[in-house]
């Protein structure tokens, strides 16, 4: 299978690393070769029909800042949409940064791949949160596969899990912690008794929170995931603006202390059901599945037959997120 990898940040690099680590195993277990025929970042691209070396791609990116400096096949001329026309690929792995304003460049890249009858695997949330039904319709119209497990909860299995492992049971609601950064900040505030401001700064120093933490702390990231879960698992036709969003920036150490006295933690909880599409700080019982520490993500799926099923996993991280992408790639091949 020929892969075109768009975006070579943390997730894109994780995908290259994961492919390099698992190439042999995938060939043995599933009987197909994964070949990266094109990689692009914001400065340029590297394209070779013979396949690019994943380790050399990573080395080039780390040492020179761009894959455009890849020996022999790197270039500064072919960028963005043009990369898709310059490579002969089977599956687009779209790992550009999430854009919640207009979903670009992910949306255009994805739609172009669909029109060209290519399957698409993505970790991106922006275009899904804004144009979910349009994207699904286009994929169906062109009879291609479109998979986005990595977009919700990183390595935590949820979309494939509910669809493929629990097909007997109808999910009625999903309640979960879908953002690792805020979970880390709230966990630290609870254990250290520190203020929101100080804990955020500490998280930024550790690289857990980004320099501009708005998407995480204001609940935007979790709201995007809420939209994806609502559309894909509960059949609720909705977009980002339908979600009621409150972030954690108003949560004080005093509030956490009060909650703790009554046996509660405060967590940023996403609630996905026919009655509510909501991301907000909530009180969770200390001995409940929601009392999860650190950067972990979790989701409890309430179903009609199986009752409650809870999944937990790493919500971020380069290789962790790549694991979900690679799973999707394998599933694309299997179908």
């Amino acid at each position, binding site marked *: 299978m020929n892969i075109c990898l768009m975006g070579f940040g943390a997730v894109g690099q994780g995908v290259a690393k994961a492919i390099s680590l698992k190439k042999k195993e995938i060939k043995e277990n599933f009987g197909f070769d994964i070949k990266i025929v094109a990689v692009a970042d914001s400065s340029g691209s590297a394209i070779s029909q013979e396949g690019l070396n994943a380790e050399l791609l990573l080395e080039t990116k780390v040492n020179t800042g761009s894959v455009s400096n890849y020996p022999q096949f790197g270039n500064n001329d072919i960028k963005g949409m043009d990369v898709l026309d310059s490579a002969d690929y089977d599956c687009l792995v779209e790992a550009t940064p999430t854009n919640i304003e207009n979903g670009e460049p992910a949306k255009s890249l994805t739609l172009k791949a669909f029109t060209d009858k290519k399957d698409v695997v993505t970790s991106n949330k922006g275009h899904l949160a804004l144009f979910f039904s349009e994207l699904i319709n286009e994929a169906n119209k062109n009879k291609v596969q479109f998979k986005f497990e990595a977009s919700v909860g990183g390595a935590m299995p949820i979309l494939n899990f509910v669809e493929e492992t629990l097909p007997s049971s109808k999910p009625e609601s999903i*309640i979960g912690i879908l953002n690792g950064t805020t979970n880390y900040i709230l966990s630290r505030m609870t254990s250290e008794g520190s203020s929101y401001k100080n804990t955020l700064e500490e998280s930024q120093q550790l690289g857990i929170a980004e320099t501009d933490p708005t998407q995480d702390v204001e609940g935007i990231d979790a709201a995007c995931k809420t939209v994806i879960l609502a559309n894909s698992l509960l059949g609720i036709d909705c977009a980002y603006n339908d979600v009621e969003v*409150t972030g954690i920036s*108003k*949560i*004080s150490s*005093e*509030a956490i*202390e*009060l*909650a703790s*006295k*009554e046996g*509660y933690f*405060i967590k940023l*909880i996403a*609630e996905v059901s026919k009655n509510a599409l909501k991301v*907000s*700080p*909530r*009180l*969770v019982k200390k001995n*409940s599945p*929601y009392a999860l520490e650190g950067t972990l993500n979790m989701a409890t799926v309430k179903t009609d037959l199986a009752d409650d099923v809870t999944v937990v996993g790493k919500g971020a991280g380069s290789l962790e997120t790549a694991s979900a992408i690679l799973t999707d790639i394998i599933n694309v091949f299997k179908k």
Partner: protein
Amino acid sequence: MKINLVLELLDVPGQLVAVLSPISKLGANLVTLIHQRDNKNERGMIPVQLTVEGEQDNLQLLIDTLIEMGITILEIDGVVRKEILTTILIGHVIDSDIRDTMDKINELEGTSVVNLEVKLSDEEESSAMIVIESDFGKKDLVIARVNEIATDKNLLAVNEV
């Protein structure tokens, strides 16, 4: 022995029969049944009064079975069942008249604030934890009221999941 129960049923066909079937299965007798379909409560549910006679163990089993079936039991032998709800308000909780906040919660029938704890912060905003006791089945109404107050007074309400 006898027990008096007040249940709350949805106004859909089959609900009453479903509730009554465990009674005979457990070898208990139905003594009284008052079911007034046109007498809905504020949640649009029909309160049903039952008097059931049987052995103590079986009556307890009946209550357990009804709860397991997801039936709301409002009263057992005249004692109103209560549920407890905790919420935290963050913002100008004192300046936005905390007395009035409590009164507005207490205004709801069968609902009262049983504990209030405020923590003042170095900064302007403070946090208040409010523990509310309400009649069984009223949780959603209480949460809706808390959210309404919070919106009006520009406070952040942190409710239970």
